[in-house]
Structures are given as C-alpha cells and as structure tokens.
C-alpha cells in the first residue's frame, strides 16, 4: 500500500496566550470581533485569526505575523474594564503539519490520546512522547502540532522514523 502523508514545518505565525476570567470574556470577544469559544478544545475563527480554548480560563490566539500589533492594541484598549493577560508567544513554538490519509495513525505512534475522538476543527494540549504539544485537527486528514522550539528536532526525528517505517510497510 502506498504511503501518501507528509510532515512539514510551517512558516512563522503569530501566537498569543490569552488568560481571562469568565466575566470578562464578553468584553474580550467584542474587542477581538468574534466570540471566544466557551468549551475546552473548541476553536473559533474570524478573518485570519483563530482562538482555541485550552483551559477554563486560557485560549491560544493565532494570526498572521503582521496582525499581531493590531490585536495587542485592541485588547490593551479594554484592559482597564476587562483585566486579562495577553502574552506574545509567537517564537516559542514551531508548527508542524501532518497531512494525508495516514496522518492520524502517524500521530498515534507517539500520542496516547484516542485521536479518533478529536473532531475536525478542535485542538487540545496533550503529550507527544513526553513533549507537551498543542495538537489541532485542522481537517479530517490534516493535523498541526505546535511544539516548543527546542523539542522540534526530537519530535521531527520521531515523525521521520515513523514515516520511514510506514513507507516500508512495517
């Protein structure tokens, strides 16, 4: 059986860690221009911006690099009324995209989650062979791993070995 999946690192993208209390989410959503998702693992999108809910009071915002200052400005404007923490973590992580019909199986070689239960458009923080990652299922057969920069060689190495094993039919 032919193997048709790819593993690639993605160009830099803007990333923020956003923390705020429940009572402030309405004001935050208003300033961002779209509703922040309300349950863990859900994501919401508007324009080039995506918000993924990681914890009860935690979201990850992703956007194009050049859109960062605009987000910072619009949220800083409402800070006095809606206290929150917005941290630019763009260069902390590198994103790896895994796509193709074998993508789910490829990831399951090092991720203990039941990936079949992760629906399209959702994302979670989890573990990938002892490395903490944010795993997003962008489409049915397309995943993105956000990995802390210094762990990328390790994660890419594991994925390359897995790809090699799949290619020779192991």
């Amino acid at each position, binding site marked *: 059986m032919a193997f048709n999946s790819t593993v690639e690192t993605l160009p830099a993208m803007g990333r923020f860690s956003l923390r705020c209390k429940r009572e402030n989410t309405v004001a935050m959503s208003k300033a961002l221009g779209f509703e922040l998702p309300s349950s863990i693992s859900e994501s919401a999108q508007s324009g080039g911006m995506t918000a993924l809910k990681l*914890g*009860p009071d*935690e979201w990850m915002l992703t956007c194009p690099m050049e859109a960062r200052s605009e987000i910072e400005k619009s949220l800083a404007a409402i800070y006095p009324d809606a206290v929150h923490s917005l941290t630019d973590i763009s260069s902390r992580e590198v994103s790896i995209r895994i796509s193709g019909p074998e993508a789910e199986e490829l990831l399951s070689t090092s991720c203990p*989650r039941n990936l079949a239960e992760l629906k399209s458009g959702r994302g979670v*923080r989890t573990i990938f062979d002892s490395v903490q990652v944010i795993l997003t299922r962008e489409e049915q057969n397309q995943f993105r791993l956000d990995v802390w920069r210094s762990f990328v060689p390790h994660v890419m190495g594991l994925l390359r070995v897995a790809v090699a094993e799949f290619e020779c039919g192991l």
Partner: protein
Amino acid sequence: MLLIHCPYCKEKLPELEFEYAGQAHIARPDNPAEQTDAEWRDYLFIRSNVRGDHAEQWRHSHGCGRYFNALRNTVSDKFIATYEIGQACPTSHAEGEENNEQLES
C-alpha cells in the same frame, strides 16, 4: 495505562497527561504564625496514608492545566470519582469495595 476523567475537560484521558499532587482537602491554616510547632508539622507532613478510598489532588498538567480532586481506591487503583476544586468529597459505599483502614497514629 489508567484513564482519568478530567472534570474541567469533561473527558477521560490518558494518565500520561496528569500529575499526582498529594492528599486533598487539607486546608492551609489562616494564620500560620499562630500555629504551634506540632500543628504546623501536622499540616505540612502528616497524611492519612489510607488503604482504600483516598481523596487526592491531581493536576491535568499536560492538558487544561487545572488541579482537581479525585477519589481513588489505593488497593484497586480504581477512580471512583473526580470533581472540581471547591466541591465536597463524594462519599463512596460501593458494594465489595475495600473500606478505609486508616493507620493509628
């Protein structure tokens, strides 16, 4: 591998995402300076070491990041319940379950 239900993520997830964090429902004294040495020692170090159902803290460290409480049987390693911080400990009287056998101090 154990599957643990996170009360915040509302999902049963692999143990690898979690960290054990000691016995639950131990309140920090309001004014530590008023404690005697013995009381402070008890607060810091003395734990019940239950053989049976044990209320304990866990943290979903590689997930939502939250601490929560769990009731786990230390003999069978079965999780009876997990619940949010601030909630009361659910009591367990399941048939055939090991009872608490607390050590005499």
